[in-house]
């Protein structure tokens, strides 16, 4: 095991996260993809700390404080998603959180709000 394999592994996890975020449309899949991208960052931090900067405390501090804030943000989004959902909405509105959607109203004409 050396730092090179760890970087390849973290890059692989990062790609899984990016692919999942772009390809998947539903909210939970997007959250999981974000966790994959976060995990790749954590692997990087700990890998560099172990192989390059032995005894470093900065990375652990960054991970703890950074993760607390980011996870709180993601949890808030998740909580909002399920707290604002009603039974009427769940049957009517399709969860579509695509990164890119070709909607003609984004470029031309009107964007009529839903009733």
């Amino acid at each position, binding site marked *: 095991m050396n730092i090179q394999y760890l970087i390849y592994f*973290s890059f692989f996890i*990062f790609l899984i996260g990016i692919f999942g*975020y772009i390809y998947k449309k539903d*909210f939970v899949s*997007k959250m999981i993809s*974000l966790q994959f*991208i*976060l995990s*790749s*960052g*954590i692997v*990087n*931090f700990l*890998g*560099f700390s172990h192989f*390059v*900067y032995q005894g*470093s405390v*900065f*990375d652990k*501090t*960054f991970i703890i*404080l*950074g993760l607390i*804030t*980011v996870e*709180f*943000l*993601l949890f*808030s*989004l998740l909580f*909002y*998603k399920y707290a*604002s*959902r009603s039974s009427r*909405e769940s049957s009517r*509105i399709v*969860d*579509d*959180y695509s*990164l*890119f*959607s*070709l*909607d003609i*109203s*984004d*470029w*031309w*004409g*009107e*964007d009529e*709000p*839903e*009733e």
Partner: protein
Amino acid sequence: MVLDFLKTLIISIEPFYNIAILIATAFLLVFFAASERKGLRVFIIAIALMGIGSSLVLDIIALSKGISSANLLFSIEAKGYLQIALILFISIFVLLFLGIHNLERQGLSRIVLIFIGLLISISFFVISRDFIAIFVSFTSSVLFLFFLISSINKNKISNPNHLLRFFLRPALATVIVFGGFSFIYGSTDFNNFQQILESDKAGSPFINIGVTMFIVAVFLALFTPPIHNPYSKLIKRSSPGTESLIFFIYFFIILSFLHKISDFYIPLVQQSDILLYLSLSASGLFILAGNIVALSTKSLRRIVAFTFFSFMGIPVLDIFLKSRGFFTDIDLGLVYLNLFLFLFLSYMPIIAVNTYLEKRNGEDSMANLKGLYFKDPYLCIGLVILLLNLAGLIGFQGFIYRYHYARMFFSDSGWLFRDLPMTIALIFISLSVILILANAIRLIIVLFKRGGEVEDMQNRSPRYRFLYIIVTLFILIDMYVGITELIAIFGGDTTFTPVRFLDLFIS
């Protein structure tokens, strides 16, 4: 003993009095946050405004005294004070706007408290220098903004998914920034950007990977076309106040982050032709997409939102120009501050007028403006001036803002038509002016058309008085900047120019 302790405490927080006032305001508001009595809501807004105003005054005093300070986590100097002063100045009006349009709603106290929390986060973000402080304050700012916008839109937005789709984007950006910091840490064991710049590791591969991830995160968070769908959907469906928060606070946070990493991405863009042309293309996309969508729609909200969106192409274009040596002696942070001040002074009154008309008429359409000249000539003329100021009317701030670019292009340095990319940059800047002017003229024509019911708009509601005050005040500020700078351009007295005031503060 207590006095000694207080004295030590005051000395220890010396450069951060402005933030301390905000924290004290938030602490005071906590005691009132649970109350829902109407009289208390006005009191809470007044307390918050006084707190923000005091913080602004202390910030300006610190700037004028030239106080600077640096420790492990934070570093504050003239530029930082200016950024905080700008955001506090903007916040006063945004909070007033929020208060006036949400006075009747439950939970206003909580909204004001979250707003103060947002300002504290942004202030810490501006002055932070340590990677941990930068990341935590950046994420906290996004978090507070999410709390604020979701509170304002509680039970008001037709589909909360649009709000989530919007905030998933800065969440993704935050997570990518986390990954970027991991690579920057891996390249060095340093804790802040200053240490990296002073070392010989500034251009190392891991640093470049980290900075590239930061740039990708910024472009995602700015909703670069063609992935601007969530921005478009949220603006159309949100309740009053959301637009001003997204325009003047959200984009300010993202551009502040862009400025923090500017010492790294500028050399990177200089070395890489791909990044150079990407930044040029992205700026063109912003400018063209924003203006074309604005021209194609009759919804006032979308016109305002997308013309504002088109201006986000200018900071992206500044990346390209700075990397080509266009702004050699000018700090990019000051260029961004200038842009934000211009956008705030132009768009805040327009948003106020649009919101009022939309509430009055019950729909979001250009038809709301029809015949405004015959119903309220003062407001109509004010709106005409503001729209033309956006396009660069001579004698107002919009012209001065464009003039600085034109002066550099037509100077003896030979930037005009130097090569194809610079020519394209000049075309984009010109297109921005022309298309904004086209949008402005389109709206002005509607203002002078006869039509709609003849109704008495001279009612005395607080919202209407607020409109008059905002429109008049902002036109006067725009005019002051425009005329004094114009006099300075023609070689006249520069004593009263805003730049001279700035020099007095910074020197």
